[in-house]
């Protein structure tokens, strides 16, 4: 029971040229693990996640979720986009239900339970325009979770939020992950976010995207960012990350 990612090659046709974006990306995420992926901007993190979600199928290789090959998007691979992407004409509870009917007792109960988990009690009837960005992202998470995904994929979900809200949502996410024992893959460009959340951190190198290093974070939750053991892991990840950065300078990409 796991997520197996085997991407031999992923290229994009840009004008006349074929640009190789991902090259031999091989990852296995065990059930209940929380993998975080960091890498410089443009290294193919979103592309990788879209392949796992089944939103992009034009690549060499295969993705398996619990031994079932992913060939199209679906609720088994829950996806959280960087922007919340809520339906503006639906209230919070309608957004969570989405295509399901709130009149259905079963759905109603699940929605109420989920609203409790993402701490949105009292906002059930609010429209997306009436709630903050952080709350919207929680609604999006609830919308994915209520469908019992086998894996939850998050593409820089907290990137657009301020530091306080981000910290808060990271804690909410850990809480959900521990409660539901759900497999998660989260992409970020924030090293601290990657270490704070992940059981494992994958560092992605750019041009073409390739796993530079996979670091196991053997720390218990909740993690104290100031503790020496945390700092030790941070040093290790930072070193690997700097290698990918210097690699970029050598390749003449720069920033």
């Amino acid at each position: 029971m796991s997520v197996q990612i085997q991407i031999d090659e992923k290229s994009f046709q840009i004008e006349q040229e074929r640009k190789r974006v991902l090259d031999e990306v091989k990852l296995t995420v065990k059930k209940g693990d929380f993998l975080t992926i960091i890498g410089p901007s443009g290294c193919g993190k979103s592309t990788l996640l879209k392949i796992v979600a089944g939103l992009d199928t034009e690549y060499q290789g295969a993705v398996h979720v619990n031994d079932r090959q992913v060939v199209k998007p679906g609720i088994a691979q829950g996806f959280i986009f960087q922007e919340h992407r809520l339906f503006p004409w639906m209230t919070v509870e309608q957004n969570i239900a989405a295509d399901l009917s709130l009149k259905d007792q079963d759905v109603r109960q699940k929605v109420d339970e989920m609203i409790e988990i993402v701490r949105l009690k009292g906002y059930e009837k609010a429209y997306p325009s009436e709630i903050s960005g952080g709350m919207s992202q929680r609604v999006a998470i609830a919308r994915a979770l209520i469908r019992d995904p086998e894996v939850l994929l998050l593409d820089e979900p907290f990137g657009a939020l301020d530091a306080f809200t981000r910290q808060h949502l990271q804690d909410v996410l850990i809480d959900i992950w521990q409660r539901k024992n759900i497999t998660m893959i989260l992409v970020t460009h924030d090293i601290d976010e990657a270490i704070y959340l992940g059981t494992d951190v994958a560092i992605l190198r750019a041009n073409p995207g390739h796993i530079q290093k996979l670091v196991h974070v053997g720390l218990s939750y909740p993690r104290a960012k100031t503790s020496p053991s945390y700092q030790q892991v941070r040093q290790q990840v930072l070193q690997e990350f700097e290698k990918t950065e210097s690699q970029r300078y050598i390749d003449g990409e720069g920033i």
Partner: protein
Amino acid sequence: MVRAQAMNQPVAREKKARKSIPIWVKGLVLPLFIIVIWQIVSSSGVVSATVLPSPLQIIITFYNLIVSGVLFSHLQISIYRAVVGFLLGASIALVLGFVVGFSKHSESYIDPTMQMLRTIPSLAVTPLFILWFGFDELSKILLIAFASFFPVYVNTYNGIRSVDSKLFEVAQVLEFSKWKQLTRLILPSALSHILVGIRLSIGIAWLSLVVAELMGSSAGIGYMIMDARQFSQTDKVFVGIIIFGVVGKLTDSLVRILEKKLLKWRTNFEGVE
């Protein structure tokens, strides 16, 4: 500095409160002024009543027309024409707008023709409609239908095409059925456009009604105006014009209320801003 500001504030607010006459009251000042001048000019007898009847006389005529039931029977037939014509044009437009909006195939077959027809002013086809369908109800209703077709068609089509592709992606990830895609994504998203089309269309339907009734009829507000003109009953002409204005404004307000109800999420958004 801080204290000075704090003390200034209540003064400023007081000033504002004294000045804040509601906008609708401000809007009434000019019409009232004109009516008063008009009444004075008419009463002094400088202008003859056949050219410019006094406001008072218009009100009396208005009252008489209401009491005798004449106004109501004309209004009834006018509204009947406008409603039937509008419903006919708008519903065909809605269906066609959907078809063209959904299928690229039908777009390439149908849309160019529609865009061509759209540029023809309805006034220009009026003679043709009379030739084909005569002076009776059919030609009037078809003329109104023709004119009210295009705003709904164009806006429905645009509305469906302007659904956010990012939300389509969400619908894919959430495994929406085709039916749910239609009812929970495409329709709500297109609704604001469609309502704009309907509002424009009602306005045009009303306008075409005037054209249709002035071109020849034996009943309706337009007929009442033409008939009164022949007998130089200028006050009656004024009553007809006022009725056209009032009913037009009323229907527009009605659609606005509908819009507010149906697009609650959007009006709320505007409220936040």
